[in-house]
C-alpha cells in the first residue's frame, strides 16, 4: 500500500474515536483503575478496562501516573541524591508535622473517625451494633412490610364489600323477626306453626352471580329443600353516618317455608351463588326447626 506515514496514524485515531463513542463518556472510576493496576478485578473487568485504556489517553496517563508514583515510592533512593532529603530534614519535618497535629494527637491519641462508616470485615460485625440491620436486611424488611400492607388492604377491600351474612327470619304468626348469624353453636330456632315463615338472606354485592339458590340440608348433607328465588332490592340506608360502602344498594333473596315442609330437627341453610357451571357457597346457617 502506498501512502504517507500519517495514513496509518489517522486511521488509528479514527478507530479510537469510534471506539470511545461506542463506550460512551464513562471512564472507569479511580477505584476500578487501581483494581486494574493491582490486578484485583476479574478477567472480564480487566479486559474491559484494557480495551478502554487502549483508546483513552486520559485514563492511560492516570494509570501511568500511578505506576510512576509506585515506582518512585518503591525505590530506595540514597540520601543526598537529587530530591532526596537527609535524615535530619526528615526529623525536622516530623517535628513540624507533630506540632501541627498536636491538638489531634493529644485527644486520646485517636485519629479522626472515618467518614465512611463501613465495617472492614463483613465476617466479624461489632457486637454492640448487632441491632442495626445491614442494607440488605433493611431492604428485605421494607419489602416484607410493603407486601403485608398491600395484603391487608386487599383483605379489607374484599371483606368490607360483603354485607353481614345474617339470616332474617320473619314469622308472621308471632310477628317476630329473628336475626341469626353463621355461628354453628347458636342455631336459629324456627317454629313452623300454622303460618308460613319467611326467610331472607342478604346477597353480597361482590362478587355478583347470575343466580342464587337456597338449600336446606340435614347435618349429614342430605338435600331436603332447594329454591331459586329472585332478588329483592333492599331500601337504601338514609343514615348519614353510614359509610359509602354501607350505602351501596343491597339485595335480598327471600322464600317462604310453609307449615309441614320440614320435619323437626337441625338443618343447614345455605346460600349458593351460581355463575354458569361455577357454584360457590356464600353463607351457611344452622337452622333448628320446631313443630307443634
Amino acid at each position: 500500500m502506498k501512502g504517507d506515514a500519517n495514513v496509518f496514524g489517522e486511521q488509528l485515531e479514527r478507530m479510537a474515536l469510534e471506539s470511545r463513542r461506542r463506550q460512551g463518556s464513562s471512564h472507569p472510576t479511580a477505584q476500578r483503575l487501581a483494581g486494574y493496576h493491582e490486578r484485583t478485578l476479574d478477567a472480564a473487568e480487566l479486559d474491559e478496562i484494557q480495551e478502554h485504556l487502549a483508546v483513552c489517553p486520559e485514563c492511560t496517563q492516570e494509570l501511568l501516573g500511578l505506576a510512576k508514583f509506585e515506582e518512585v515510592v518503591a525505590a530506595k533512593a540514597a540520601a543526598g541524591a537529587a530530591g532526596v532529603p537527609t535524615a535530619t530534614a526528615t526529623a525536622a519535618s516530623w517535628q513540624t508535622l507533630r506540632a501541627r497535629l498536636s491538638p489531634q494527637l493529644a485527644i486520646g491519641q485517636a485519629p479522626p473517625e472515618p467518614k465512611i462508616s463501613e465495617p472492614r470485615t463483613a465476617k466479624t460485625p461489632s457486637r454492640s451494633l448487632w441491632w442495626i440491620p445491614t442494607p440488605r436486611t433493611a431492604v428485605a424488611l421494607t419489602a416484607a412490610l410493603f407486601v403485608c400492607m398491600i395484603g391487608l388492604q386487599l383483605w379489607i377491600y374484599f371483606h368490607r364489600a360483603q354485607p353481614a351474612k345474617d339470616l332474617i327470619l320473619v314469622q308472621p304468626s308471632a310477628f317476630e323477626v329473628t336475626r341469626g348469624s353463621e355461628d354453628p353453636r347458636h342455631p336459629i330456632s324456627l317454629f313452623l306453626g300454622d303460618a308460613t315463615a319467611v326467610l331472607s338472606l342478604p346477597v353480597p354485592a361482590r362478587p355478583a352471580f347470575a343466580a342464587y339458590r337456597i338449600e336446606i340440608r340435614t347435618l349429614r348433607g342430605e338435600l331436603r329443600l332447594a329454591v331459586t328465588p329472585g332478588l329483592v332490592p333492599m331500601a337504601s340506608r338514609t343514615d348519614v353516618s353510614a359509610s359509602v360502602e354501607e350505602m351501596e344498594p343491597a339485595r335480598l333473596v327471600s322464600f317462604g317455608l310453609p307449615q309441614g315442609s320440614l320435619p323437626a330437627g337441625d338443618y343447614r341453610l345455605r346460600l349458593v351463588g351460581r355463575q354458569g357451571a361455577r357454584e360457590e357457597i356464600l353463607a351457611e346457617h344452622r337452622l333448628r326447626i320446631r313443630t307443634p
Partner: protein
Amino acid sequence: MTEHSQESPIEAELDDPVARLVSQIQSGIDVERNFERLHQLYHPRLIRYFFLQGQPPAVCEELTQEAFLRVFNEIGTFQHRSKFTTWLYSIVRNLNLNERRKSRAAKRDGYEQPLEEEIAPGAEEPWNFAPALVSNAPRADEEIERREQSAILQKAISGLPPQMRRCVFLRVNQGLKYREVAVVMGINIDTVKAHLGQATARLRRELGGGPEALAQLADVGPGNEGES
C-alpha cells in the same frame, strides 16, 4: 503497654507491614509512634516524587506536609481494598495538580510583554491574497483513494488479536514507549515488542508491500532508545 500486643483479626491477615501500620493507626493503637514511622518511611519518597514532578524544593516540603496532614485526617476512609500506596497516590496526585494550577494562575496574573512586533500606525497591512486562491481540499481521486486505504487499514487492524491491537493503539495512537505500553497492558516489555513485531509483519503481509506508515509501529521511536 498492653495495647501493643493486641492484634485485631484483620491485622493478623495483613502481610504488608505498611498496611499493618495503617491498621494500627486506624484502631487508635499508639497513634503518634505509628504515624511517625509512617512519616519516616514516606517523607523522603514523597519529597522525591514531588521533586521529580518538577516542584521547587521549598514547595516539595510544603506539599509533603500537607499530604501527611490529609493522610492523618482521612485515614479512616482507607478500607484496605487497595494498596496503601494507591490510596496515598490519590492524595498526592490532587496536591500536585492543585499546585500546578496555582502556579499557572500566578503566571497568568503577571504582567506580560507581548513578543509580537506592533504594526506601526499608518503602515500598510501585509495583505497576502495567495492562500485564498489555493484550495486545500483534497482532489476527488485523492479522496477516493484515501477512503479505500482507510477501509483496507481498518479491516487489517480490526483483524489483529485484541491484545496485539491494543498494543498498536497505545504505541502509535497514544505514542507510548514500549515500557509504558507494558505498564498499561500489565505485561512484560518483551511481550509488547513481540506483539508489535508480529502486528507489523501481519499488517505488511495483509496490506501488501511495506507501507512507510508502519515505520512508526516497528521502529524504535523517540524515548525507546536503549530499551532492549
